[in-house]
């Protein structure tokens, strides 16, 4: 039986023993991005390198979404994490979704979870940040 393979929810999530996010960094100005780039929005450069984003950070902003588009399970906590100077859009997971448990400025770390397995036996892995 073949080993079960995994695929990340987005291509900037790196799986393995030490799951982490990676960013596309402009070699001339240092601006960081998570999407496929045509050029740098800050300096218009076209030369990029890949850098690891720290797995720990602080919660810079959040919302607790209780009303979303059809098919999106609620409630969930959405937030912006300052990961060592790189801002990351994420869900805050493994926490009660209320303002007693989710606090501005709280320290968080990257965590992964399974999104399920497809017909070919491939497991998709999602990520979020959890309190630490």
């Amino acid at each position, binding site marked *: 039986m073949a080993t079960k393979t995994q695929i990340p929810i987005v291509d900037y999530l790196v799986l393995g023993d030490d799951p982490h996010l990676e960013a596309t960094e402009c070699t001339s100005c240092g601006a960081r991005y998570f999407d496929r780039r045509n050029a740098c929005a800050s300096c218009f450069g076209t030369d990029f390198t890949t850098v690891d984003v720290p797995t720990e950070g602080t919660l*810079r902003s959040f919302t607790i979404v209780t009303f979303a588009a059809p*098919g999106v399970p609620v409630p969930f906590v959405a937030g912006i994490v300052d990961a060592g100077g790189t801002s990351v859009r994420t869900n805050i997971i493994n926490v009660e979704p209320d303002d007693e448990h989710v606090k501005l400025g709280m320290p968080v770390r990257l965590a992964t979870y399974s999104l399920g397995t497809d017909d070919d036996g491939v497991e998709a892995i999602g990520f979020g940040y959890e309190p630490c």
Partner: protein
Amino acid sequence: MSSDDIYILGIHMTKFGKHPDSDVVDLGAEAAMAALADAGVTMADMGILAAGNLMNASAGFGQQLQKQIGQTGIPVFNVANACATGATALRTAIMAIKAGECDMGLAVGVEKLAGAGLLGGGGGGGKSDEHKWEPSGRFGAVAGVDGRIGTAAMPGTFAQVGMEYLHENDYSGEAFELFARISVKNHKHSTLNPLAAYTKEMSLEQVMGDVMIAYPNTRPMCSANCDGGAAAVVVSGAKLKTLSKEQQRRAVKVSASVLTSDPWQEACQVLPDVNTLTRMAAEQAYEQAGVSPEDLDLVELHDCFATAELVHYDNLMLCEPGGAVDLFESGATWRDGSTPVNVSGGLESKGHPISATGIANIWEVCHHLRGEAGDRQIEGAKVGLAHVIGLGSACGVHILESSAA
């Protein structure tokens, strides 16, 4: 008046709310014809038409409108700029006059949104119900990212904008209650505006006890989807000099007309940065107009959510940097305060028919500057500012001054 100046000659907004028997062209025609009548001119005088209807942005709304109210062969610019579409239409007409291509123009914005649900979000990446995980899009997503990697829907996006401001300014109070009290203000203001979609006063308990959409925004803290149209006739100062004394008296000077987009900032592609481009637009507008924030008798700003109103106090420099909470707590932004904000009721109660909004807020300011605002008149208003944000982003800021002199 200076020949180089630009003036609003006539302006109109329809009742905001539900218009089941009118289509977008009906609402546009109502707004445009009333604005022309208010200006004392006709379509024959118009040198340009700039029109926006965001939900049907490829439909050629401007030409559809012409076919109902007057086809004269003038250039039509159909514009789309998210929630700043109306301001963009106005800005387009103003630019045409400034460029010397014509001396009068018409800007129209209309939307039918009554009953529309949540806007934004829900997209991105592959479908979650597929049985094969396949990367797609610019993030190589194998599943929908909205709800899995944060939120792109409007209520949550703007909730984070407000919460981020509190975090940056070390706010230690109750965030939910603070933002709810901003909504209480705007709902109270709306009781004096017969054209608002909702005109009910709401207590703090009612606002906080309503359905939570995206913490800390409950339903009455979100802009109201509704139908509506607004239109404005703009004229050059040189042309205005040839018109009647009454037209000159009621004309409102456009002291500044500015449109900006996002300059790149760290994180601006992670959480939309509605702050930097608004501050840029405000700085440019104050400089163009030779006006300072203290001179403003009223401000209509883009409170698409209660959380957004707070940050724009700061972005529009109505307070010291970081001082938005203190400004609100001082009572300054209530209609009897030193800088009344959203005396129309704002988007939370007046409503937000997207493309109409950026002209309707100009209408509100003009109404006061002309001394025609009835029960909600800000006495002696001479200078006002209107602001809109279209997420993505586009920011329009206009500063208006009464020309009565």
